[in-house]
């Protein structure tokens, strides 16, 4: 408990450091007034008024200080583009990202674990090579390409030839009322893309560590005691082999928040990744900062959680 507390406390200066660097980087990324400058209707007076309104006429360190001081009061600021509070904008999108990312993640694990087991137990067999080849293809496939391909086949072609088809994008039906069944239908393809692409590293990690564990003395002992291969594999080997996977999985969780940009973009999924992308295009500093801060916090937290889970899974590790 003391360890967890200490780690969290240590994270605070880290987060402050991250926020400052990110703030500077975002400032260098573009000019929120560029939209206005390129509108021939804008007068010099308009420009001055808008600079004042957005507070971008002040020095960067003052802007940063103002941002931090309102953050301390729990206010992430107001979007330049929409005028809405950044917190509310993020909260409007976060659940959608979690639904998509979470489903994709669970599917990825559900696919990866059995594949890795087959691959490790029957190593260097035809099945192993087939799985290995597939995972490398999964590694290398760009999400936007796979997404477009799926839409083309399962939405457009299937409908053309009269087969039951999947909706090409969005989260709910446009012509009817939102429903759970509709949500599932809309979720299949984007979550499938995330699962396919993300299961690849999981398979690789679990396969490697399982192969390692299966060579250990205690596994041989278990076999020598006359236990069935099934019991040896599932009760003894798998739990230990899962330890490195746990770290990988924890490290991937922040990805759910913003890393599904491409999939959200292709499937018109109203998630946070897209919000970040749109904000970047609009040079909407406050929204970009809010999302990056949230992701940073989750990354740091997940690192702590990964360490704790590690200790829980592996009794050999102790944190003083």
């Amino acid at each position, binding site marked *: 408990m003391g360890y967890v507390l200490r780690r969290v406390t240590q994270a605070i200066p880290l987060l402050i450091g991250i926020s400052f660097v990110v703030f500077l980087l975002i400032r260098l990324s573009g*000019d929120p007034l560029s939209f206005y400058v390129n509108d021939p*209707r804008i007068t*010099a007076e*308009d420009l001055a008024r808008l600079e004042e309104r957005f507070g971008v006429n002040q020095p960067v360190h003052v802007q940063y200080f103002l941002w931090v001081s309102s953050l301390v009061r729990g206010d992430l600021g107001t979007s330049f583009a929409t005028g809405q509070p950044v917190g509310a904008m993020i909260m409007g999108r976060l659940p959608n990202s979690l639904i998509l990312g979470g489903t994709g993640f669970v599917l990825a694990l559900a696919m990866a674990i059995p594949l890795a087991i087959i691959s490790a137990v029957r190593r260097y067999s035809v099945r192993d090579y087939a799985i290995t080849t597939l995972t490398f293809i999964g590694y290398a496939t760009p999400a936007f390409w796979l997404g*477009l391909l799926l839409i083309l086949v399962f939405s457009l072609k299937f409908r053309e030839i009269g087969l039951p088809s999947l909706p090409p994008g969005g989260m709910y039906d446009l012509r009817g009322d939102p429903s759970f069944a509709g949500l599932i239908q809309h979720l299949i393809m984007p979550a499938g893309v995330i699962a396919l692409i993300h299961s690849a590293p999981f398979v690789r990690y679990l396969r490697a560590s399982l192969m390692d564990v299966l060579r250990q003395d205690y596994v041989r002992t278990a076999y020598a005691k006359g236990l069935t291969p099934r019991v040896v594999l599932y009760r003894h080997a798998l739990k230990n082999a899962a330890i490195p996977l746990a770290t990988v999985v924890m490290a991937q969780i922040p990805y759910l928040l913003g890393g599904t940009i491409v999939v959200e973009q292709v499937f*018109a999924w*109203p998630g946070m990744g897209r919000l970040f992308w749109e904000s970047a295009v609009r040079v909407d500093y406050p929204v970009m900062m809010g999302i990056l801060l949230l992701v940073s916090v989750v990354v740091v937290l997940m690192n702590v959680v990964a360490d704790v889970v590690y200790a829980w899974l592996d009794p050999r590790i102790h944190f003083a």
Partner: protein
Amino acid sequence: MRSSRITALSLVAMVVFAACQSSGGPTPSSSGATKQGGTIIVGITDEPDTLYQYASRQFPSFYINLMISTPLLRVTPGNRLEPYLATEVPTSANGGISADGKTITVKLRKEAVWEDGVPVTSKDAAFTWRTLTAKTSAATSTLGWDRIASVETPDDQTAVFRLTQAYAPFVSVVLAGQFGGRLLPEHTLASVADITKSDFARKPIGNGPFRVVDWVSGDRITLERNTKFWGERASLDKVIFKISPDRNVLLAQLKSKDLDLVADLTEANTEDMRSASGVTVATAASSIIELLNINFNSPDDLTKPHPVLADLAVRQAIAYGINRQGLIDGILFGKAKLAVNEQDNTRYFNTDLKPYPFDPAKAKATLDQAGWTVGANGIRAKNGVPARLQLTTSSGNKIRESMQVVIQQQLKDIGFDIVLKNYPPAELFAGCAANGIKQGRKFDLLLDSFGLPGLDPDPTSFWRSTQIPDCKTRLAGSNRSGFTTSELDQLLDAQLATADDTKRTEIIKQIQKIIYDNVAALYVYDRLSIVAAADRVKGVTVLPGLSGSAFMDTERWWVTDGK
């Protein structure tokens, strides 16, 4: 004079007609066989930022505003104005515009009501002016509104705008068009401190044929027929704006009929859409023009003339040396019109001006005569200054990058050394604070676009000397070429103060001739407004020279199956 204007108008009307015909596009439904009811799903790639239109920077927001609020004056095919929320178009003849051009009187329709049933009054007009020009206003532009000294409201139907000085564009900028002429409801907004942060920004109160009922962030915005609308009842029950950020997916959805209508297509998409079954494409020249900006000053020191481009012969040679029609045919499949200037789709266009022909021999002769002689390396020079220029455009824009390479080769052929130097849009188009390339005029030749922002032909922001940005003393302004003459300034001011449309048109034609004769910019082609719709959608009109024109009379949209 009168007859020439009528000819110009009918010409524009013919262009509309031809544009619709040639593409087999949707034609206005005057047949009366319109079906009632049904839903149309419009696909958009960019989600609106805010639906408070005066603060928005995004086209879809402005499409929706065209549907939910009626302008005082609206544009009809032929780009004429007709009264809409107002009872007549103010002119000097009907007394709507005073003799000195400083007082404009507008009468509002008695029957006009907001969607909540409250009458639209002249107080709303006064409120709109106060709101837009307030010190803390969120409005992107206050152009035109900032010329108003006061708004008087002698009765609920009469608004009297008193201007600080005569301003000819007032009617087309403030009272009409795509951007102006829309009032804000005082009764809902009077107590609101910042409209962009209020509910109005997400669910505005309008007075048009439709009203916004729902906005699901990142997904859709739903509009329904406004049952209290005072004008022509909309045929459709519902119009849904579906946000589909990936353009490829958007087009696939249109082909699969998941979407009914897509408005912001590019020239590159038209062939693909035309070949799709069940989809009709309508095109018209838009107000946006692709052009080669020419810097008259040295990008290293803007106080000095440009060592190469300040020479008229060089600019003329560039005009003769580039095969612009060839660019259109080769890169745009001939789908665009060679441009002369930003007015060439308006009735203000000086039809005496013809595009500079492609004539490399003449280009070479012009340069020879001016003393730009060819050196050993094939590159011309004059007084030791080599004819070396940077050609800049926005990286990632495939059409521009393709054109750029061809232009480079053609200018090489007549003796220029052209170096390509591109920037990502974020850097190229940034403002002075972020060292923007365009605004800071750090280019020799820049291939990009510009256009008249609305109905009015006023080109002041592009050509007046006071509109040359320098990032030290003047951060705003769109005269990035830096071309200026005192005669031009005088003419620009004169057209602003000339209320008589015929006289004003003559001055604007003179301005065009100066720009043309001096090759102050080399216009390449008029971009197209392209609207693609499913065949079941009828009643959509696209007007030339007006962005978003398809959304101006949505009450006439209908679907053949009534669904």
